[in-house]
């Protein structure tokens, strides 16, 4: 039953997101990064992964799973249904004290099974005025345990204006999702160096003008 309605629900959510945001992908000059990837994106709204998911070509979308916090997506039965059944999210436990499994282990296992991931390295939704929060170390640990992984920076623009924190009605605004060129961790690269490089690669994709989508 759940899996039967999960597909139409996913399609309906994507259609709704497109109707509100007219979302458009901007691909890097080298074209759409093919093969298995970890897409790492800025995070300001619960809808972020839906936009990334919506603009990926179907062949890539089918095997792409968002990484999300278990606390939020297991909170209620509707969250559980959307998180697990509709979007097949990889749920990780963020609370170091209480968690049963190491998130890096969980993500690596999913990567080994051939899936691509959508990851938000800030670790939480950015509700400050800063463009991007400092990265948590998760991206680094995942990259060092699977050094061949392609890491693709993805900038999601304007979605934070569509639905700011605490609002329930979305404002229709045009959103863009900008993909950068794939990067990899270098042999022996330090954590600070790598995270700094990844964060700069992501920030380079952000628009120069606040409302602009050029």
């Amino acid at each position: 039953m759940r899996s039967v309605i999960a597909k139409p629900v996913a399609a309906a959510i994507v259609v709704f997101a497109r109707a509100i945001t007219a979302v458009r992908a901007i691909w890097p000059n080298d074209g759409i990064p093919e093969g298995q990837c970890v897409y790492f994106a800025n995070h300001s709204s619960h809808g972020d992964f839906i936009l990334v998911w919506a603009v990926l070509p179907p062949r890539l979308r089918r095997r792409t799973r968002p990484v999300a916090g278990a606390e939020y997506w297991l909170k209620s039965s509707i969250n559980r249904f959307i998180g697990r059944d509709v979007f097949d999210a990889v749920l990780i436990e963020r609370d170091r004290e209480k968690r049963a499994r190491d998130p890096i282990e969980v993500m690596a296992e999913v990567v080994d099974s051939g899936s691509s991931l959508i990851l938000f390295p800030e670790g939480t939704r950015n509700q400050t005025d800063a463009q991007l929060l400092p990265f948590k170390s998760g991206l680094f640990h995942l990259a060092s345990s699977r050094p061949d992984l392609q890491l693709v920076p993805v900038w999601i623009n304007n979605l934070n204006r569509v639905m700011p924190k605490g609002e329930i009605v979305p404002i229709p605004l045009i959103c863009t999702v900008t993909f950068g060129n794939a990067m990899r961790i270098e042999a022996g690269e330090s954590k600070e160096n790598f995270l700094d490089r990844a964060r700069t690669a992501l920030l380079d994709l952000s628009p120069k003008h606040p409302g602009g989508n050029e």
Partner: protein
Amino acid sequence: MNAANSDLWTLVLGIFTLLVVSSAIGYLLQQRLPTGKSNAAIENLNARIKAWWIMVILIGLAFLAGRIGVLLLFGFCSFAALREFITLTDTKRADHWALAAAFFVVLPLQYWLLWERQYGIFSIFIPVYAFLLMPIISVLRGDTERFLIRIAEVQWALMICVFCASHVPALLTLTIPGYEGRNVLLIAFLVIIVQLSDVLQYVWGKLFGRTKIAPSLSPSKTVEGFVGGVASATLIGAALWWITPFTPFQAGVMAFVITMMGFLGGLVMSAIKRDRGVKDWGHLIEGHGGLIDRLDSVIFSAPIFFHIVRYWWSAT
């Protein structure tokens, strides 16, 4: 078949022929290029022709569906235009409810008033009620930073994208003695003149353009293109008098007013784009940029055209 229908079909046939001819020209130009070469101007031309096909088909379908179809089509245009406009403004979180009201209350109400033929409230709803209520909604959140700029931006977006644009379908509400059941042809007249004037200005400019007319706003517009485009669109307007309630001379004057307003409206909208640092309003229509890029001249000429027709021709 009545006269309105046969005129509409003659018009459709004419537009169809025009599009087939331009598609053929676009195709031949593409074929004449040496293989492997590409030309930006020709690619742009072909993208534009493709977009015109889509526009003509959409407007044709709306006409077939009648008043409800036309209202839905322009209601959607207002929605997409408002979305493009608000995207480029610097609104803040405190404007959230005002913006939600603009999209989900003001816009549908404006078109619903047209459906109900409530001309009185239709013509003042946005300039008076939305104008006063939107800043009230914003001010209740207590954020005064750039307040005047923020509320002015939202009001401008509503005036341009909803109020002005809704005057195109409003042409259907006019009662013109001797012209009953043919109002849809007034919309066709307005849209055809505006679009042809844009194209003709572009063509005249490409052929004879020397002197820039507004270098800091629109570097591609030239005096020669402007004069040639306005003159030829005015003549075509006069030649289309048979689809309007006007005499040939009146139709020419109307076409002149429409093209002038369209040209000046294009300049105003270019200035807004320059101010916001973008080249196009969006990417909705391939080869045309955003929806507002195509609608800007219609938006400026529609209310003026509507009121001239209403004042001198309409019985209501």
